[in-house]
């Protein structure tokens, strides 16, 4: 009986995973949980881990995420540089340091609303992938069975598993949870925001997944018959060039630019004292004249993941002496 349930469950997971991408389902659930937690407890994700498990324990996920996300940041900056290269024809190596500098300036000087809403608005360009599929005549019927019964070429199982791991790793990014949680705090979410949280998690993450799936389908429609396996980003843009010509390839470069820029900006938020947190807390510091509030606010600013526990203790002590 248990075995039967297991096989049914596995069948469902396979079908759902193929249809919507298992990573997306996972990130929807995680984002919804983190948003709900923050709305109800009024604590950010990072804050809760540190307070409930202690700063020493907190160093473990902090260190591992810092390493993983740093590697991802390098790739995201590279994505922005490659997008600029596709626009200009100049090597992306030339753009890379300027992109890094630009992202740094953007994070420290641009208002939070711009960084939060700008990429979200510009990200609508990914809808062009769907338009591309429609322009090519829609999804062919023979593509659907591959959702629940993928076919492998001989000897490519490890490649396929690597791809699965890469997709899951790229979709379920820890920084996203920190960023979302900070945003919920920033917007002063409460128990009445739970519906908004659920809709944001499902629609927002679902939209991102739809863009990824649309690009995969475009690749299957255009590139696979040409024996192109998309080892470089420029090759992927050829899938958009077929239905829309130059405009299509430049739309692809635009999507690459916007998504990589927004991802690298969000990472910086998380890693360098999460600007969204400090912004709201700066407001709190300015407004709160109650010494207890000030102490809490300054402690929260020191929530920055780059500060050590010694610095935290020292700052809290200094703050206590000043006000009490």
């Amino acid at each position, binding site marked *: 009986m248990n075995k039967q349930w297991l096989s049914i469950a596995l069948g469902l997971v396979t079908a759902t995973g193929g249809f919507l991408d298992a990573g997306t389902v996972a990130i929807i659930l995680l984002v919804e949980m983190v948003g709900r937690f923050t709305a109800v407890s009024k604590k950010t994700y990072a804050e809760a881990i540190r307070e409930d498990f202690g700063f020493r324990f907190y160093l473990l996920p902090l260190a591992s995420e810092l390493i993983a996300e740093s590697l991802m940041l390098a790739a995201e900056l590279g994505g922005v540089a490659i997008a600029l290269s596709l626009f200009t024809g100049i090597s992306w190596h030339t753009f890379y340091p300027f992109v890094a500098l630009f992202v740094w300036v953007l994070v420290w000087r641009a208002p939070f609303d711009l960084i939060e809403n700008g990429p979200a608005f510009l990200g609508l360009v990914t809808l062009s992938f769907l338009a591309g599929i429609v322009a090519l005549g829609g999804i062919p019927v023979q593509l659907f069975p591959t959702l629940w019964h993928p076919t492998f070429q001989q000897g*490519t199982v490890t490649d396929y598993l690597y791809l699965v791991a890469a997709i899951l790793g790229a979709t379920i990014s820890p920084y996203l949870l920190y960023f979302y949680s900070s945003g919920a705090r920033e917007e002063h979410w409460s128990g009445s925001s739970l519906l908004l949280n659920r809709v944001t998690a499902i629609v927002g993450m679902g939209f991102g997944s739809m863009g990824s799936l649309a690009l995969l389908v475009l690749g299957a429609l255009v590139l696979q018959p040409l024996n192109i396996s998309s080892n470089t980003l420029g*090759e992927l843009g050829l899938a958009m060039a077929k239905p829309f010509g130059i405009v299509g390839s430049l739309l692809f*470069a635009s999507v690459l630019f916007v998504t990589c820029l927004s991802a690298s900006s969000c990472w910086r938020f998380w890693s360098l004292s999460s600007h969204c947190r400090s912004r709201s807390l700066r407001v709190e510091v300015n407004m709160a004249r109650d010494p207890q509030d000030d102490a809490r606010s300054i402690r929260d600013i020191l929530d920055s993941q780059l500060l050590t526990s010694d610095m935290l203790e020292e700052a809290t002590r200094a703050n206590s002496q000043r006000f009490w």
Partner: protein
Amino acid sequence: MTACDVNESPFARMAGTIGSALAAAATTLTYAHEGKISDNYAASSFMEYQHELNGTAEALTASSDVDRHTLQHLLAVYIPAQRIVDAPCLSSSCDWRGQVEALSRASEAFLKASST
């Protein structure tokens, strides 16, 4: 899917990668001349293909799991293709169709070698 063939041989993997890169180069060149992508886009893409194919001839020569006859055939079609990738004809004044043909021929040879 067979449980025995989990991994491709290094040569099959390399041949598949080269074949795919050359197919992409041929399509890029065609699209550039058909006005489907800009010259800048094509130039940037070719820089990536150059990077991807860098050192391939040496790796092919050093490959041990391929017979000499196949290797000589692959090198014979690869070397002119690599020259095209290094200096693609993006203007209408040169024989871009000939370049596309050479790239496609080399791509097919490598893809065939990767699947045997």
